[in-house]
């Protein structure tokens, strides 16, 4: 890994710690709730940034992947499991340890946490492959059409199915407790650890994505972006690389949704809505497609403002207007990459100044 990247990550981590310390010192640590949620949304945004900026594909279904992760774990961890699986089956499963009941009356059955996350990951990968097939077959923006359709279908399914709680969504989702670890949930005594856990996930995702960008895969993606025809003439299997990136970004969205649902103790159908997908696309556009750091910062800022209710009931309108404004006035996003380079350069020279 390059030295400059350590600096960026260190700066970023310092910013996270600073936010926590300041808010706690000011006694406004309830603001950490929105920042934690923004972190989970940021997972979606940076994944989408890789897909849009580096693989040149637009997904209008990332909210659906987010909701998929959330709804699956919500179903797995609430008593609605009894509506899907017979009681007899549940007791049998609980004997093996796949399912366990956390209250005395056997009313609340849950899939073991060690299983629910892998299940979400596997289901997401399978769905992403099925939807991603058009990119292997066709050129152009067919993926955005396929994901748009997927988003609408999933939204309607969540809205209309009893297991998914219809218009109410699913509430009372239990915290995601890993034995020997604090529970991932909304309990106020665990607010600070939860905040750090969420941002820890974002940093892991960032390291993963930055490594991809700098690897042979990233080089191939840039080549595809510059000239798809020439890239395939170099022996790059263009479809395969695009599909890999699509799967990675879908996974990040689903994992974001997974933890967000536990943190919020619930999820509603609006998370799967098409407007949510448009919101992610517009955040990536504002951050500057192939600018991971820019997207991350805009993802946090805009989601935070939206969650704090600064946009009022014009929430969706604000994001729609942003998308249009960016496309007209600053198609490369509002950040110049040079800004980040300058900051990095500046920080990297601080030790030298001290040594003088």
């Amino acid at each position, binding site marked *: 890994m390059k030295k400059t990247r350590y600096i960026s990550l260190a700066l970023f981590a310092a910013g996270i710690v600073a936010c926590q310390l300041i808010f706690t010192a000011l006694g406004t640590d309830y603001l950490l709730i929105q920042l934690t949620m923004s972190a989970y949304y940021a997972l979606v945004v940076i994944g989408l940034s890789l897909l849009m900026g580096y693989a040149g594909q637009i997904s209008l279904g990332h909210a659906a992947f987010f909701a998929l992760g959330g709804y699956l774990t919500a179903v797995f961890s609430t008593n609605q499991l009894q509506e899907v699986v017979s009681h007899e089956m549940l007791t049998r499963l609980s004997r093996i340890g796949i399912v366990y009941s956390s209250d005395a009356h056997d009313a609340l059955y849950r899939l073991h946490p060690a299983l629910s996350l892998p299940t979400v990951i596997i289901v997401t990968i399978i769905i992403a492959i099925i939807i991603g097939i058009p990119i292997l077959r066709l050129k152009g923006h067919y993926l955005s059409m396929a994901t748009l359709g997927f988003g609408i279908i999933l939204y309607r399914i969540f809205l209309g199915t009893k297991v998914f709680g219809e218009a109410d969504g699913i509430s009372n989702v239990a915290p995601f407790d890993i034995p020997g670890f604090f529970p991932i949930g909304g309990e106020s005594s665990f607010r600070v650890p939860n905040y750090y856990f969420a941002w820890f996930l974002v940093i892991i995702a960032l390291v993963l994505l930055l490594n991809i960008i700098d690897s*042979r895969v990233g*080089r*191939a993606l*840039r*080549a595809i*972006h*510059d*000239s798809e*025809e*020439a*890239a*395939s*003439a*170099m*022996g*790059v*299997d*263009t479809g395969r690389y695009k599909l890999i990136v699509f799967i990675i970004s879908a996974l990040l969205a689903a994992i974001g949704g997974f933890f967000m649902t536990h943190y919020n103790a619930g999820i509603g159908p609006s998370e799967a809505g098409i407007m949510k997908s448009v919101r992610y696309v517009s955040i990536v556009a504002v951050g500057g497609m192939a600018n991971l750091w820019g997207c991350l910062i805009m993802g946090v800022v805009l989601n935070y403002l939206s969650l704090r209710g600064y946009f009022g009931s014009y929430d969706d309108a604000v994001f729609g207007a942003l998308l249009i404004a960016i496309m007209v006035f600053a198609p490369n996003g509002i950040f110049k990459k040079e800004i980040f380079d300058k900051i990095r350069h500046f920080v990297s020279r601080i030790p030298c100044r001290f040594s003088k």
Partner: protein
Amino acid sequence: MLRIRNVVAGYGNLTVIRRASLHVKTGEIVTIIGGNGAGKTTLLGTIAGINQSREGEIFFDNHDITKLSSDKITSRGLSLVPEGRQVFSSMTVLENLEMGAFIRYRKGEKDEIISDIEKMYRLFPILESRKHQQAGTLSGGEQQMLAIARALMGRPKLLMLDEPSLGLAPIIVQQIFSIIKELRSFGNTILLVEQNAKAALNIADRGYVMETGHILLEGTSKELLENKDVQRAYLGKEYRRINE
């Protein structure tokens, strides 16, 4: 080395290539000449697997590659330098060359790739002086050299060049063609598509004349240069006489 038989290809309802057949032997420079819209680029694209043929067969090195995708064809040793160069404009010259060896990294030929890059710098000295410059900022001629060097980085058995003279100044065209001629002495086999018939026939061993999707004529370069129809249509001989 390359043999195509009765290939029919096109886009959608449009048929561009109508039963074209040709072959290229090892060590040859073969050129396909013809005017605008004759189907030359489509034919190369079809051989390289960028568009699929509807009928006919394409054999490369005695293997049927008719239905293979373009990346598979490239890894068999057939490289295309696409029309209009299409260098990776956001990458540096060096990165472009490394991209050219993309399939070879998987085979673990790292040291050979580095020595091949040196070889390219000897062949195209201008690329060495520009190695850290973004490819998009190069001049047209330099981009064309880069595109050829990039294709050579894949160590192709057969190099296909699509209109390397397109949009270049005559002096640069001369340079490019002398380099192509030089490549043969390194043992490369070349299939060259050109509108600049005279320059192409001067360096080629054999040539094919293509018009509206058909191969009209074939012969050695000398035969084609002396052919009255070719002279009139592509070499501008008659035109000069009328003026005189």
